[in-house]
């Protein structure tokens, strides 16, 4: 019987793929500066991180790995200035994603897509202040980022975006999983790596 306890090897894998995810998020997240691109982030980040995440899932067979990855991401973004909602977003969605993925034993592609979608939803936490305390935040944005940025932001980031974000991320996650899945088949399996 395989032990359900996480081993050192699993934890090292968590670290490696968390590092990759953070780097991708950071590089793509630079687009954050331009509000028009906010919705695109929800497509782009899952799309690009789909490849490493699908690879990560081939190394995952125990509950906890995805959760730990999420928590580390959440804390990291908190320290980077995304406030506590980043932690809440990543922790909540991370645990749900891990539970869902476990139901598919981390090996069912359809469930992997759902799990990856939920995991990716964690990043809503990074923009969540917008809805949690929309008024003060918008006032704050207006003050510190200028009225124009705020209205710009409001135009592209209205409060129904919270719901819309989940849908947009789904599209991104679906594309990302498909791409990741394709790359696994095209490269990693043929190369004998997974």
């Amino acid at each position: 019987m395989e032990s359900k306890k996480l081993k050192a090897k699993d934890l090292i894998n968590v670290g490696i793929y968390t590092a990759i995810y953070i780097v991708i998020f950071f590089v793509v997240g630079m687009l954050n500066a331009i509000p028009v691109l906010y919705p695109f982030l929800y497509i782009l980040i899952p799309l690009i991180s789909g490849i490493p995440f699908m690879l990560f899932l081939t190394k995952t067979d125990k509950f906890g790995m995805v959760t730990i990855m999420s928590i580390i991401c959440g804390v990291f973004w908190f320290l980077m200035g995304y406030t506590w909602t980043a932690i809440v977003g990543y922790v909540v969605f991370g645990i749900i994603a891990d539970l869902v993925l476990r139901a598919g034993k981390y090996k069912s592609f359809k469930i992997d897509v759902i799990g990856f979608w939920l995991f990716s939803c964690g990043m809503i936490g990074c923009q969540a202040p917008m809805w949690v305390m929309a008024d003060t935040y918008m006032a704050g944005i207006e003050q510190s980022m200028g009225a124009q940025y705020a209205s710009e932001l409001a135009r592209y980031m209205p409060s129904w975006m919270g719901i819309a974000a989940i849908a947009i991320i789904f599209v991104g996650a679906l594309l990302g999983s498909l791409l990741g899945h394709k790359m696994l088949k095209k490269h990693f399996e043929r190369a004998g790596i997974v």
Partner: protein
Amino acid sequence: MEKYEAYQPPKRKGFYLDPRTKILFMAFVTTLMFFVYENLAMDAVVAIIPLTLLLINRQVRTALIYGGLFALALVAKLTQGMYVLPDILNMISVLLIAMVIRLFPIFMLGYYIIESTKTDEFVAAMEKWHIPEAFIIPISVVFRFIPTLGEESAAITDAMRMRGIQFGTKKFWQAPTAILEYRIIPLMMSVVKIGDELSAAALTRGLGGLKHRTTIANIGFTFYDAIIAILSAALLIWALL
């Protein structure tokens, strides 16, 4: 067998902050910048702290770049009413200025923390906070791996340039999405290989056997941590007033 003297960790000269102070201060500044937004003076003060820290840590170049841009943004913000720019330019400049003022202090602090703290100090701080190994191990790997990703990525960039795989070439226009694949796949291949070897090496050195490892890092609060604490308290009072 010959005996050698025990290792002496280098004496800390001058300014030193406990990693726990840095993390808590980061959390404090992040929260402060989130709730306080009508106070340009406070923005400036909050920016001066990490700037000073960077200078103390001799990251002069970083300090000059970030500090210069921040100062520029501040001047631009103060003189905003004095001139009229075309709409689109105005929007961009307002945007950029706001971003620099709001985010650069946090970036600077993040930069300082990453550069001034050794990984084992972070780990020691987490051990002191009784964070379980299940988090400490992956976090150590994240620190270890980010520079590795940079190195590997640079090597792949070189390889791509020598093969003429880049934006704008004829080959590129034939299959524009392939460039993402060429960039990411060799990187992932390396990462999988390095990761496997890293795990093997770590396991043969006993990783994962104990619930709580020991650590050789020396951390502890000093007079300097008190300064940061006082500064934080002052900022908090100012914000609440």
